[in-house]
C-alpha cells in the first residue's frame, strides 16, 4: 500500500519535499478555476491542468493539457484533484489512474454508486489512493492544501481531523484552532455512500504519524463507518486520545439528509448505534462542535499542540 504522506509531503532531502506537484482536472471550469487560484495562493504547487479541447493554453500561468497522460509525462506529478461534473467523473478518474496518478482527490458530489465502485476497483489494482468523492479535500496546514476548504479555520499542529462532512470539518477545525489544538492534517472522507478512503483506512493512515497527539473523527448518521471504526480502535489497541462528533441525532428515519450517505434504515445508521459503539471504545462524543476541544483537552490533559 502506498503511503499517503509520502505522496503528499515526501521525504526530507527530496527536491520537491513539501512542495509535491499537483494536477487539476477540470481546471477551466467555474469551481476548478476558482479553487486552483485559492490553492496556488495557499502555496500548493499546481503544475498542470487538464481540460480536453484546451490543451496548449494556460491558466494562471499553469499549462493546460488535453489528457492526464500528457500532464503526467510533462510534470511527473502523482497527485490529481478532479473538478469535473459527476456524470463525467468515472472517465476522468479512470484516465488519471491509468496515467499513473497515485493520489486522487475526488471533489464531485452526486457520483453514482456504481461509478464510484468501478473507479475504486481500478485504484486498488493500481495501488493508488482515492479520497472522496464528495470530499472537501485534504489539508496539511502550512504545507499543502488540495481541496475546496477555506484556509482560515486550519492551523498547524498535532491533531488529525477526519470528517465525513465538509463544512463540519471547517467548523470543528476552527474550534480546535481557537483552543490552540492545531492540526497535522484535516481530511474529508466524503458524504457519499462509497468512500475511496474509508474512515478506518484514513485512521490507519494518520495513526502512525510521529507528530500526532490525538484524532478527532467527525461523523454523521448513515452507514456503519463509526461503528466499524470504534471496533477497530478496540482491536488495534490505539492508545492516543480519540474524540468524536456525530451530526444528525435529530434527523428522521428514511429521509436523506442532504448527503447521499446520510440516511437511517431501521437502527442501521442511527446516531444511538454509533454513540454506544464509541462508548465501548472509550471515545467520547461531543454534543456540539464547540465541545470537541473541551473533550480533547480532558483526554490530553495539559499537553497541547
Amino acid at each position: 500500500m502506498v503511503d499517503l504522506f509520502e505522496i503528499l509531503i515526501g521525504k526530507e532531502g527530496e527536491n520537491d519535499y513539501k512542495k509535491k506537484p499537483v494536477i487539476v482536472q477540470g481546471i477551466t471550469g467555474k469551481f476548478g478555476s476558482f479553487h486552483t487560484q485559492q490553492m496556488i495562493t495557499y502555496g500548493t504547487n499546481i503544475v498542470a491542468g487538464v481540460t480536453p479541447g484546451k490543451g496548449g493554453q494556460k491558466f494562471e500561468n499553469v499549462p493546460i493539457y488535453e489528457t492526464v497522460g500528457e500532464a503526467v509525462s510533462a510534470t511527473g506529478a502523482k497527485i490529481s484533484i478532479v473538478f469535473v461534473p459527476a456524470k463525467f467523473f468515472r472517465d476522468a478518474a479512470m484516465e488519471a489512474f491509468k496515467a499513473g496518478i497515485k493520489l486522487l482527490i475526488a471533489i464531485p458530489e452526486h457520483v453514482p454508486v456504481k461509478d464510484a465502485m468501478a473507479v475504486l476497483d481500478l485504484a486498488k489494482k493500481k495501488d493508488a489512493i482515492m479520497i472522496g468523492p464528495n470530499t472537501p479535500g485534504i489539508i496539511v496546514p502550512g504545507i499543502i492544501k488540495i481541496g475546496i476548504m477555506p484556509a482560515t479555520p486550519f492551523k498547524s499542529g498535532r491533531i488529525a481531523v477526519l470528517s465525513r462532512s465538509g463544512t463540519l470539518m471547517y467548523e470543528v477545525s476552527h474550534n480546535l484552532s481557537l483552543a490552540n489544538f492545531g492540526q497535522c492534517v484535516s481530511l474529508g472522507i466524503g458524504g457519499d455512500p462509497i468512500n475511496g478512503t474509508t474512515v478506518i483506512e484514513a485512521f490507519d493512515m494518520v495513526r502512525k504519524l510521529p507528530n500526532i497527539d490525538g484524532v478527532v473523527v467527525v461523523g454523521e448518521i448513515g452507514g456503519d463507518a463509526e461503528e466499524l471504526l470504534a471496533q477497530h480502535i478496540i482491536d488495534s489497541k490505539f492508545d492516543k486520545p480519540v474524540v468524536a462528533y456525530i451530526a444528525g441525532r435529530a434527523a428522521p428515519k428514511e429521509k436523506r439528509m442532504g448527503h447521499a450517505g446520510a440516511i437511517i434504515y431501521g437502527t442501521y445508521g442511527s446516531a444511538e448505534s454509533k454513540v454506544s459503539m464509541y462508548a465501548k471504545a472509550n471515545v467520547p462524543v461531543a454534543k456540539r462542535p464547540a465541545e470537541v476541544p473541551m473533550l480533547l483537552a480532558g483526554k490530553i490533559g495539559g499537553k497541547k499542540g
Partner: protein
Amino acid sequence: MRLLEYQAKSLFAEFGIRIPKGLTSTNIEQGRKDASIIGFPFVIKAQMAVGGRGKAGAIQKCHNLDEFELKYPEIMQKIVKGEKTKAILLEQMQEYKKELYLSLFLNRSKRCYTVIASSEGGVEIESVKNQIIREVGLGQVDKNTAEEVANAIGLKNNSVEEFVNLVQKLSKLTVEKEAELAEINPVAILNDGTLLALDGKVIIDDNAMFRHDELRKFQEISELEERAEKNGFSLVELDGNIAVVGNGAGLVMSSLDMLSDHGGKPACFLDVGGGATTETVYEALTLISRMKKVKGILVNLYGGIVKTTTVATAFIKAYENKLVDIPVFARMSGAEADKSKEMLKDSRTKMFDTVEEAINAAVIGVNKSG
C-alpha cells in the same frame, strides 16, 4: 428513491421474476373494477414506502364485496409511521408451503453487492434468523454462488434451480437499474416447489437517475423538494416551526440537533449546497416563505466555497420584496462574515457570534410569538 411495492414488482416482472396477479388503483371506483378482474378472495395492500404494514392493518385479506366496501376506504386512509397510503394494490391470494427471505444490497463498508438469504422470511430483516450472507463483487451473482446460497438455506429438488434463477434475475435488476437494495420478503415456495415474489422493496441510487429516465415515472417527491433539487439545494420537510438553513449537509444536521437539544422544533432541513448563488438562496427563501408553519428561521453558515455575503444579499433582497416577514436568527462565520454582519446590521436578521446563542434566541423568540 424508494419504490412502492407495486413499482418494485413491475420491475420484478420486467426481469422475469414471478409475481402474483395484481392491480393498482387510487380510488374505489377503479378498485371495484380491479376486484372484479382479480376475483375474491384477494389481499388489499396499502402502497406506502414503509415497513410494518401488516401489523398496522394496512394489509388485509378480503373475501367478498361487503368486506371490500368497508376495507378499501379504511386502508386508503391509513397512516403508518407518518406515511400515507399512496395507492392500493389488490393481489390474488396465494397458497404456499414456506416463506424465504432474499435481498441484494450495496454493502458500503465492503464496497460490493451482498446477498442475504434465509429460510425464514416474512418478518423484517432485523428479525430474520439464520441469515446467509455472501459478498458477490461488483457484477452479477454467478451460478455457483447462487447454488451455494440455495443449499445453505436448505432448499431441495426443483426449488434449488428456481432459487438460482431468482437470485440471478434479482442480481441483474440490481446491477442494471443501479439499486442500492432489492429485497423480496417473503419469497413463497408454492406447493409445486416453484417460487413467487410476495412482496418487494427496491431503492434506486438517486445519483444514477440521470441514466434512468425509464424510472422517472416512479418519482414521488413533493413539489417543494423538486424545486429544491432543481436549484441545487437539499430540502427535507419536518414537523416543527423553525426553518433551519445552512451550507453543507453536516453543518445543517448539526444545527438541527442543537436546536432540538434546546427544545426547538425544526420545520425543515435546508442545505443551500456548494453551488449556492444569491438567486438560489432567494429561491430557497421563497420556498420557506410558503411553508405556513414556519415562525422563524435559523441560519448557520460557515463561509467557504459559498461566501456568507451571497446569503446575506439574498436575505436583503427578500426583505426588500417583503418575502420574509418572520424573525431570522443567524450565525455567520468564515468567508466575508464581517461584511455580512455589516450588511444585515439594521435588518430583520439578528446576528450572533455563536450558533448556540442564535439557537437560544430563536427558541425564545419563536415561542413568544406563539
